[in-house]
């Protein structure tokens, strides 16, 4: 068992603390406060810049779909809808694949392969998102347009209700493609955190379950998943935070159309894609302010999601000595 290391006070507060000690301590604390201050500064700057648009459109900004730079009428429904729907698709694709991969890597993968595969997954999580976006535009979208979408439109399009999701021309780019690319991008990210979650579970629990004759699946289902539930939720929320704010992987393949359509094949937009596509070319104060208001909305949404993720992951990081 490790003893608690001595505190700085042990050698500093003995009545003759040198001035250099005070100065250094102040310097470190100032640096830390500055870092935390960034978050507040970002919020304040965004809020101030967004204020004209929010004042001009009021709560209607959140409920109208019009996005017309010529008449200077702006509403955030289409980008918010696009952000949420692409992230939802990303989660539906990414989370099961990531958790399945993590179970495979931690529970059944041979030891010799395990380390290198986990390192591989972690390296993939570091690949810049622009690579995913570019691959999505130049390789994946044409593939979908030529081979997958016509088939889905023929088969699923005529269905009642559900069919509305699969109608329209097979462009290749659109909401579905953006969601799939996002899912692929957050996959290694969620998987590597999920591996940590499973590794952090007390090995005695696992051994006890195997000892009473449980199969590997039963150990996963009845021991690992319930034990790691908060951690897995945190990992998914962390991935969701990434997906909501991701710019490059989406901007390439979303099509940038400010409208809400039922079809997953139709082009749409997200908050980050609108910003990336329009911000440098926006003319007029109200236009710029509306885009900043979009940024503010994204900031608030991701802040809430990431804060929840961190709260759920907190106890794992405490128990995790690595």
């Amino acid at each position, binding site marked *: 068992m490790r*003893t*608690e*290391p*001595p505190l*700085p006070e*042990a*050698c*500093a507060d003995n009545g003759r*603390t040198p001035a*250099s*000690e005070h100065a250094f*301590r102040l310097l*470190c604390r100032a*640096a*830390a*406060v*500055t*870092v935390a201050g960034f*978050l507040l500064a*970002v919020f304040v*700057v*965004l809020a101030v*810049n967004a204020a004209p648009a929010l004042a001009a459109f009021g709560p209607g900004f959140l409920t109208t779909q019009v996005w017309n730079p010529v008449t200077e009428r702006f509403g955030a429904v289409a980008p918010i809808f696009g952000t949420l729907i692409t992230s939802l698709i990303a989660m539906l694709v990414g989370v*099961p*694949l*990531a958790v*399945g*991969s993590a*179970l*495979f890597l931690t529970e059944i993968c041979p030891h010799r392969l395990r380390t290198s*595969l986990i390192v*591989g997954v972690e*390296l*993939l999580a*570091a*690949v*810049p*998102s*622009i690579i995913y*976006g*570019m691959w999505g*535009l*130049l390789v994946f979208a044409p593939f979908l347009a030529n081979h997958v979408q016509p088939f889905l439109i023929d088969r699923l399009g005529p269905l009642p209700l559900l069919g509305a999701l699969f109608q329209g021309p097979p462009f290749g780019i659109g909401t579905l493609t953006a969601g799939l690319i996002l899912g*692929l991008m957050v996959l*290694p990210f969620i998987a590597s955190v999920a591996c940590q979650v499973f590794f952090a579970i007390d090995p005695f629990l696992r051994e006890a379950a195997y000892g009473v004759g449980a*199969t*590997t*699946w039963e150990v*996963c289902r009845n021991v690992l998943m319930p034990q790691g539930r908060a951690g897995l939720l945190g990992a998914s929320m962390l991935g969701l935070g990434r997906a909501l*704010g991701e*710019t*490059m992987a989406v901007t*390439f393949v979303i099509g940038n159309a400010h409208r809400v359509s039922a079809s997953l094949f139709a082009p749409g937009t997200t908050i*980050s894609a609108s*910003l*990336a596509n329009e*911000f440098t070319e926006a003319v007029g104060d109200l236009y710029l302010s509306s885009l900043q208001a979009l*940024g503010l909305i994204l900031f608030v949404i*991701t802040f809430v999601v*990431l804060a929840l993720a961190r709260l759920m992951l907190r106890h794992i990081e405490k128990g995790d000595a690595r």
Partner: protein
Amino acid sequence: MSRTDRFALSARRRWRNRILMGLCGGAAATALLALALILWRLILGGGAALSWDILRLTTPPPGSKGGLLNPILGSLAMSGAGIAAAAPLGVLAGTYLAEYGRHERLAHAIRFINDILLSAPSIIIGLFVYSLMVVPMGHFSGWAGALALALVAVPVIVRTTEDVLRLVPASLREAAVALGIPYWRFIVSVAWRSARVGILTGILLAVARISGETAPLLFTALNNQFLSSSMNAPTASLPVVIFQFAMSPYADWQELAWAGALLISASVLLLNICARFLARRRR
């Protein structure tokens, strides 16, 4: 109950186990296959377009020969300036979290905020720096890009610095305290020195993180078609040029984009591998 019944039950459990664990293996295989496809296409597309001209010539107009000299230099300059600003701030803040703030409320709050900054959308950082620097200065500039990259890098450095400083053995602390030196001397001459490889690892990871970032540069450094020696002017960067070229309809621009994408991915992966290697040697 006869023995065969018990075995029948266990056969069902065995099959359920096989099917579901097979699905897990399938998930891993699907994930690895998809990601391998991306890397394969990247190597194929980038490898074909790679030549010495990439390093010698600047970005061309469509239809003529060119390279990526100006975005490569721009990326190096902005990442370098960004890291130079982020490293001292990040290391000092990480030191506060690991040493002085160990039992302070403030430190908990700052750690929480830093963890959120760690995965906050980088395009928001771009918006922030746009209002902070581009609007007052009246033009896009490489310095604004460097500042945006620095803001992305700081949380990474804070986090890793705190983590490695916590690994400094208690016996070293006790020895230093027993000598009666001020605590800051312990931090500078003992803690930082024994954790320097770890701190360097964190800085390398931060470099890897920012060298692939595109979104914070879009509204800050913008882009520049020409070679420019001034960071005060709009500055080209590899990721932004890849974005512009890959979205264009010109085949030769798309080829250059693949080459740039390969360069970036290779350097990011190399930096990550170096960081891992250093981290392993430390233990």
